């Protein structure tokens, strides 16, 4: 089931974590820059125009009680619109940039559907159950191969949960009656770097009851061959499949 051509392409994939890191950095850098400029400019002017007890300047026109606000405009409003225009340009270009990345994240890397593995994730109070294409199920720990696009279909059997792994930068609402999709992939380099078996913390990101805090899981990534060995042992042997595959998105079994 593993096409070597797709494996080669694997090195060109950008994992969601990588994509996130880039866009987060761009936003953080720009946000810090804009914030610093605006705050510094404001603080400087507040200091500069403090009331030092001296005589008011000639053009200072003190308001009086009971006046109606008079019409304003002129050079001041020009400055206002200039700043407004600049901020609009910054914000809109950020969004256009972010939108391009959104399209990639929504679609995921193009693998022509070959070699993808689709796993059903079902949240329950308080844990996660995973169902593999062959019908095998595990709870708590999802075991997947490296260098492969993993598609997940996320739902819930009781209340609203949220399946997420901060390290992989993936997250999906698990809503009863709905099926949400997401994808991720982990490179074999990453697996090797973690000593032949990469693990990622899974947490629930939506309040789901008294055990919400402790609702943890794990994604374990094995090298291709090890995973296949493991997967073949499970082949069809499981009868614990509790999800009606057709009901949650017609997964090829």
């Amino acid at each position: 089931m593993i096409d070597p051509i797709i494996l080669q392409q694997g090195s060109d994939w950008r994992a969601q974590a990588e994509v996130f890191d880039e866009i987060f950095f761009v936003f953080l850098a720009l946000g810090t820059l804009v914030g610093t400029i605006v705050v510094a400019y404001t603080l400087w002017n507040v200091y500069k125009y403090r009331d030092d007890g001296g005589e008011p300047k000639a053009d200072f026109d003190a308001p009086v009680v009971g006046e109606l606000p008079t019409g304003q405009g002129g050079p001041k409003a020009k400055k206002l619109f200039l700043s407004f225009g600049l901020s609009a340009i910054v914000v809109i270009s950020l969004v256009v940039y972010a939108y391009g990345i959104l399209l990639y994240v929504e679609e995921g890397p193009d693998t022509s559907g070959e070699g993808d593995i689709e796993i059903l994730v079902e949240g329950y109070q308080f844990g996660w159950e995973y169902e593999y294409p062959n019908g095998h199920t595990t709870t708590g720990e999802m075991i997947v191969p490296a260098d492969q696009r993993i598609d997940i279909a996320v739902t819930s059997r009781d209340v609203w949960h949220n399946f997420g792994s901060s390290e992989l930068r993936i997250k999906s609402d698990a809503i009863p009656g709905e099926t949400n999709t997401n994808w991720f992939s982990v490179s074999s380099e990453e697996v090797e770097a973690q000593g032949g078996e990469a693990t990622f913390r899974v947490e629930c990101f939506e309040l789901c009851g008294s055990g919400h805090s402790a609702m943890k899981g794990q994604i374990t990534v094995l090298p291709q061959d090890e995973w296949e060995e493991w997967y073949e042992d499970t082949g069809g042997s499981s009868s614990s499949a509790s999800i009606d595959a057709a009901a949650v998105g017609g997964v090829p079994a």
Partner: protein
Amino acid sequence: MSELPPTTSVKRWLVTTNHKDIGILYTITALFFLLFGGVLALLIRVQLWDPANQVLSGLAYNEAVTAHGLIMVFWFLSPFGFGFANYFVPLQIGADDLAFPRLNALSYWMYLFSGVLLGISFFQGGTLSAGWTMYAPLNIPMYTPSIGSTGAVLALAMFTIGITASTVNFLTSIHHSRAEGMGIMDMPMFTWGILATVWMMLFAFAALLAVGLILASDRVLGSVYFSATEGGSLLWGHLFWFFGHPEVYIVFFPALGVMLELFQTFSGRRLVGRKWVIISICLISVQSFLVWMHHMFLTTINLEIKTLMMATTIGISLPFDLVVFSLIYTLIKGRIQFTTPFLFAFGALLLFILGGITGVFLGAIVLDYEFRGTYWVVAHFHYVMFGGATALFGGAYYWFPKVTGKMYDELLGKLHFVIFFVSFNMVYFSMFLGWETPRRVFEYNPQFQTFHQIGTIGAFILGFSFFIMFYNFAKSYVAGEPAGDNPWDYSRTAEWAVSSPPPLENWPNRPSYASGKLEFVKDYVPDGGPAVKADGDGNAATDGGNSHSDHIKEYPYWDKHPSHASIWPFALSLMTGFFLFGLSGFSDSVTFIVGETLASTSVEISNAVYPVFIVVGLVGLIASGVKWGLEDFYAPPSEFAERWPFNGVEKVKLGMWFFLASDVIVFGAFLSAAIFVRYNAGWMTWEPLTESLPGLINTFVLITSSFTVILALVAAHRNSRQGLLASLGATILLSFTFLGIKMWEWHHEVFDRGVMIGSNAHGDPIQASIYYVTTGLHGLHVVIGVLIASYLFVRAYQGHYLDDERPVEYFGLYWHFVDIVWVFIFPLFYLF
């Protein structure tokens, strides 16, 4: 009508309808809830000290998180802002009081007693533990079974009812009672902030009321909306956030209004680009209803809608940019005075800038995917909402001299600000640093422990800083320096033109801006007639805000004196509280055993306390309502007022229109829920549950009754008592016919076809729920209509309404509305 007792008497505070008294009550009550919510926050922070050691159980922690959110958002932030709104909006627009003083008192007491209900819910087996967002289906009894959970939901519903009354009141006041010469663009910025707030509240809180009623129905009556897998969870998300996003601005705009006011007063400069700031505020208010799905980016809504919501979300940040720049440029070339109020307002701006920038991050969907459900969100909304509230504390210092006549202690005030500002950033900036922690989780990744510990230390300092403020206010109230009428050099608005504290009826004479600045005009009152506008000689101009209350007020109207006291708002709210308290335990103490027929159906009561409260509350509620109607309470109309854009609409009629607008949203939400769920279930898979004939007959019955109400109005207009009685009587009879057919229909469904509110022998249970709940809400409106019509009938029999047929007309407006709603219900539930 009773006389208003002195401020030293407890009775005064129970009966007062004066806007300034009620403003004080709101402020003090809101500060109490700040402490309540603050203690819960400290419990949360203690729990977060060490991810391996807990002081609270998981459930107790969830309760603390939920109640903290609910209390701070609903029972602290908004009411704190509305304390100032109550006190100062009438003063700023030159009105004697709000348009409906008793309704204002009702809003306050509803607010207070709803808070009491929420407090009680902790002792009813634990309060709600589903988070303040109350996501479905965690919010239904299957997952949160305690009576207290229902109590908390009903408390919120009661709060919402009070809010709706308050909204109608403020909208009517600002659009109806502005002093002569004060155009809508001339209003002070704080009043502008409140006006935008109440317009948003009118629609947003109606959606919350609807979703709260549906949830209450799920919890008390056993309907199955939010457990339905046909979109039940998403339905909650949509309805809640349709309210929830405008709510962010609803709590922020009063604070923004204070900032705009204080920046001007303490820089001696007028607002830069004032017109554009007002336009921005209006734009934000409209846009706030078009962004709600950005709270649901990770649900199953499709990419096109997400993209649209991203665009509107980023779009809404632009008018905010303009407002922020306007605030900054207003300071330039000013003479900035670093008083305590200014420090708080300025601090609020800095915090809001940080909150705003981090909000732009959340608007980018890819980033939101990762921030969703983390402390990034928690930090962001605290910077925005609590950051905004920072300006409200500035407002408290700013107006303290006006309300009490005493000056606060400046040194203590500045000390409060410094400690507040530093510890605020300790608490919430540390959340940005540890943002990967999931929300509402205490067993978090230990690598973030340092950040959470800094937050916990900051939280205790932050809590402590408020005691400096309380001490300052208490000390200054008792022994502060007299403040004078206008302690600020550059204040502009009218509240500074009267004494501190202002007299009961606010003005020495009628305030007017007709000449371009505030003047107090003495009107000529002919014997027994309405006031006549004074000519130039009668003008009594102020000398720059130094007029005093020792003028003897010559009231410009008839010899009838305006009323300021009524006990019925208090009684009505208390009884509503009783009723809802009873309702919270209804499903646990009362069981219906449905037999083959109505006769064989029995009721089992396991605990009589709750049903007794329901009955007592309901009877008391109706009795207080009748007493309210009979009370001779006089709220004088503003004779010469600016009313754009509602010129020529009478006060009560305007209020009625506002109320009906909010009711349109309530029914709109119920009907949208019906359509949304049916769409998710597969539109064509549902057949109408009922036969169409009874529905058709009822349609004709209701339309005919609309006609008879018009006849009643015509008869009253022609001074025909008999005609009035006959037409009202016919309306009542037709209503009873409608209700009779409705009862037959429900009886038929339950006993002949086995269709109950939570089960359905002929299809999806949710279809039965929607049918009963939607037609039930309409039926409830008909019942209320019958009650009002009966009241009118009795009063008409006693000879009323022939001189003044307006009550009949306003009832007619309501009744036509109820009929129009039916026109939408009929096809949806009986035809298709």
